[in-house]
């Protein structure tokens, strides 16, 4: 089979692992939340400022959690007990890892785009200058970092560790002191809430730093399964 078609089949097959109740429930929840915020705004329960802050929080704070959970769950077939079957299969490690990351990434990108759709209308009323693109990018980049951490741990046979690392980064960002320290010392790359809280750096710079960090971690995650495979060969 041609490599392209084979990869597409593999990519589509990752839906089997994402078809997992926490992942699906969360995805549905996040899909509904922007609508709920909009409804609350229309009924007057939320002011424009409230709606604005709700979208901010959703994009930067909560949506990335889906990426963390999905990023760990999509590696279900790579758990230690399944490896005796997985490793002898001929699918190259990098290709499998890429398919998993892409599968989560595609769904996440769609989810991140939903909230961004509401921003232009909101900002037109408020007169601000923030764009849907900014919302989208913040959600995407924060989520990519957590996805990469979860994937890294899972690929190295430590799904709990990967998820715990991502959760630790997320919770650490909730504390202003820690978050601002991360912001100052990583040029905002590890400051997941740079938009909500504010940053020492312009947001464009923060996005670039976050993108580089996410790409680096994703690259490591891509290679991790192959490393795990070779490590397993070296011992019982």
């Amino acid at each position: 089979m041609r490599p392209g078609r084979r990869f597409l089949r593999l990519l589509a097959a990752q839906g089997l692992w994402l078809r997992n109740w926490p992942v699906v429930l969360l995805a549905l929840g996040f899909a509904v939340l922007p609508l709920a915020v909009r409804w609350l705004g229309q009924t007057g329960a939320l002011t424009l400022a409230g709606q604005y802050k709700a979208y901010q929080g959703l994009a930067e704070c909560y949506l990335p959690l889906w990426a963390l959970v999905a990023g760990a769950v999509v590696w279900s077939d790579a758990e230690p007990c399944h490896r005796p079957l997985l490793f002898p299969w001929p699918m190259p490690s990098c290709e499998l890892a890429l398919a998993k990351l892409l599968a989560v990434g595609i769904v996440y990108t769609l989810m991140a785009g939903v909230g961004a759709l509401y921003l232009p209308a909101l900002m037109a009323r408020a007169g601000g200058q923030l764009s849907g693109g900014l919302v989208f990018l913040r959600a995407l980049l924060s989520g990519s970092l957590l996805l990469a951490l979860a994937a890294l741990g899972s690929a190295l046979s430590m799904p709990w560790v990967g998820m715990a690392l991502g959760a630790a980064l997320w919770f650490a960002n909730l504390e202003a002191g820690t978050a601002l320290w991360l912001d100052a010392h990583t040029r905002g790359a590890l400051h997941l809430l740079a938009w909500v809280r504010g940053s020492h750096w312009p947001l464009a710079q923060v996005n670039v730093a976050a993108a580089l960090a996410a790409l680096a971690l994703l690259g490591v995650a891509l290679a991790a399964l192959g490393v795990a495979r070779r490590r397993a060969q070296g011992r019982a």
Partner: protein
Amino acid sequence: MDVEIKALDMRYGRHIALRGIDMTLSEGVTGLLGLNGAGKSTLMKILATLLLPTRGQVHIGSWRLPREQAQVRRCLGYLPQEFGLPGNLTGREYLRYAAIMKDAPEREADRWLSEVALDEAANRRLGGYSGGMKQRIGIAQALLGDPDLLVVDEPTAGLDPEQRAHLRTLLAQRRPGRVALISTHVVADLEQVADRVVVLHKGEVRFSGTLDELAARAEGCVWSLSGPANAPRPLGAQIIAERLQEGRMVRRLLSAARPDPSAEPAAPTAEEGYLSLIGRGGEVEQ
């Protein structure tokens, strides 16, 4: 395709799991016998590219391990002794996923579901499968893609007699160029399907030959003894079988010398040949 193993060593720290293994596996079914800890699973994992040997060479067809393990995996079907299955997928979904991973057509998944008699349970989740059903799914994924090298570790574990017979038929399906290596504790399974058998003991090859040759190892050492129901067991002989028949105790014994004056010599089976090779307490009888 042949599999050639030369001077293969496998060491885990100070423990030597395999020592100086030399063997050639040709087209057909080869059985692998040995006690627990003999090194059977280790050898199978090496052939399945799960482990790298400490020393030695393994040639699978024209490919050499570990350099060309990616090519080997493309023609490999492997069933490990212990494996996990994702409980939330159905049997059909899992086999289709395995087909994708092995670059095989997805319709093969349905074909092998029929072959292992899991059609009716195909749409049930793997988490609800019995041990035997899981084993059959494992066999099905190993056979997906019509592999040239089939490495199967304890395939009949957990299967009932009918399923074992069916599986033997499956595994024994001859295909030009296919090399099948089956490890089992049940010698009777090999008697039906294996062309050759290899006995491993403490990491070394102790025997390689046909089943008849294996049985011949116990020539003159197998005895049949019939006595009163309360007759004591004869000393110095290994009891292979013992049952009450019409009020008399009939025993089948393994002993280098006649264990009892009334014992009659019996024709040895392959299992008895294996037992005589391994001996009481694991010592090899020369």
